[in-house]
């Protein structure tokens, strides 16, 4: 087996068909430590499917997934669970556990997966909630939190597992516009702190400012990839730039 320790996460030629339709066609992606890869593209392009194939929430039909130089045997349940503890995931609609308080949401996997006792798990949970600015909301239930707060709890929940990589599936798309900023601020802090991340988003300004690489997807294929500067330079003539411009126009329209 070839070892590539430079890349923390290596996705090699992942394909997925659903109902006879190719959702992902041979998608590959190498993520080095501390990088933020941003997936861009129209809805239905396969961004979410690709992210969920990386931690096998959707089992890919073919392809390889490598973490820290080790290939995941994705049909080995134990190995898959261990892999997932190292790969955090943030969902578009938060998916907080509705019956648990914010702190219990963060603590539950520490207890059930990492075997921590209740006291230590809750203490760690409160630390993580403090890190995303929610120390005073620890005892509230998801239904008592705003969308932005819910997503920050979800980020704290992922961080508590000490993940090697975090996958973010349009983390701000379900939020009211005024709540987007607080979530992006947390993600920005993570990026600056050196967290390795793969993120699907429509927040182009965020992508431009922070992405190490942008990957433009369409119909299940990564059709462009490069640094924000290269892809979004004036007159670059890339699909990414055209998409960016269109999103901006729509943003201006809805603002006026």
């Amino acid at each position, binding site marked *: 087996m070839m070892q590539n320790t430079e890349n923390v996460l290596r996705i090699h030629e992942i394909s997925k068909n659903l109902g006879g339709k190719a959702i992902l066609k041979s998608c590959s992606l190498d993520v080095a430590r501390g990088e933020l890869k941003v997936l861009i593209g129209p809805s239905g392009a396969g961004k979410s499917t690709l992210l969920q194939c990386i931690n096998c*929430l959707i089992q890919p039909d073919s392809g390889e997934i490598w973490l820290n130089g080790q290939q995941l045997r994705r049909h080995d349940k134990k190995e898959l669970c261990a892999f997932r503890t190292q790969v955090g995931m943030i*969902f578009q609609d938060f998916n907080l*556990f*509705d019956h648990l308080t914010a702190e219990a949401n963060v603590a539950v996997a520490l207890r*059930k997966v990492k075997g921590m006792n209740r006291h230590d798990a809750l203490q760690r949970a409160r630390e993580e909630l403090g890190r995303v600015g929610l120390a005073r909301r620890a005892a509230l239930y998801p239904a008592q939190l705003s969308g932005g707060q819910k997503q920050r709890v979800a980020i704290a929940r992922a961080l508590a597992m000490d993940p090697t990589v975090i996958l973010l599936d349009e983390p701000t798309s379900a939020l009211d516009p005024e709540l987007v900023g607080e979530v992006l601020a947390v993600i920005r802090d993570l990026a600056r702190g050196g967290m390795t991340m793969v993120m699907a988003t429509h927040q182009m300004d965020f992508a431009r400012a922070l992405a190490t690489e942008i990957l433009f997807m369409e119909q299940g294929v990564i059709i462009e990839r490069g640094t924000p500067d290269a892809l979004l330079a004036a007159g670059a003539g890339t699909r990414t730039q055209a998409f960016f411009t269109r999103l901006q126009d729509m943003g201006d329209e809805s603002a006026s």
Partner: protein
Amino acid sequence: MDSLITVWNALPFIVGGSLVTIATVCIALGMGLVFGVPLAVGQVYGSPVVQRLVGLYVWFFRGVPILVLLFLFFGLFVGLGLPVEPFLVSCVVLGLTSTAYQSQIFRGAIQSLPQGQLKAARALGMSDGAAIRSIILPQALRLSIPGWANEFSILLKDSAICYVLGTQEIMARTNFVAARTHEHLALFAAAGLLYCLITMVGLYLLRRLENKTHIPGYSTGMN
């Protein structure tokens, strides 16, 4: 006046039967809970074979009348050389029937939860077993309480039919006294009231359980 005196005199005997009724219903409900939850989990998350088997079980126990099942299991107990104790046979039949109905209450509750709950648990590295125990069932069981209260009240009334085996519950004792005194109207009115009373208390307790386990801020549907 005479009928009232008859009822008054028979009351301790009939009310004593309510203990048997309550015991039967509690045991059957408990059986239904203990077996119904795994059946529901099997039907939702199990392999196609497991799903088929659960479906078959539910089909049988929802399809055959309890009266038929009582005689069937009576015969079965005799055939297998088990102790033919009417109370035991009643509990087993009501328990197995309630298992079928309860499994469908739990199945509906599990399937009403957003898909994202299981996904999020898996994404954190939880095994499916841990996710079902810690994430899915605590929510599904809460959602099941109203349906479960319904099942309790139905089961309580169904338990009256166990008198055909000679189980000494409310109905059998009322019938026993009525056959000797011919005060059917007054006696069965009293028995009916007794069932109403037990239903009321049971539903009240379940309502309290529902409120107690309510998740703050959480509402389903039209609250």
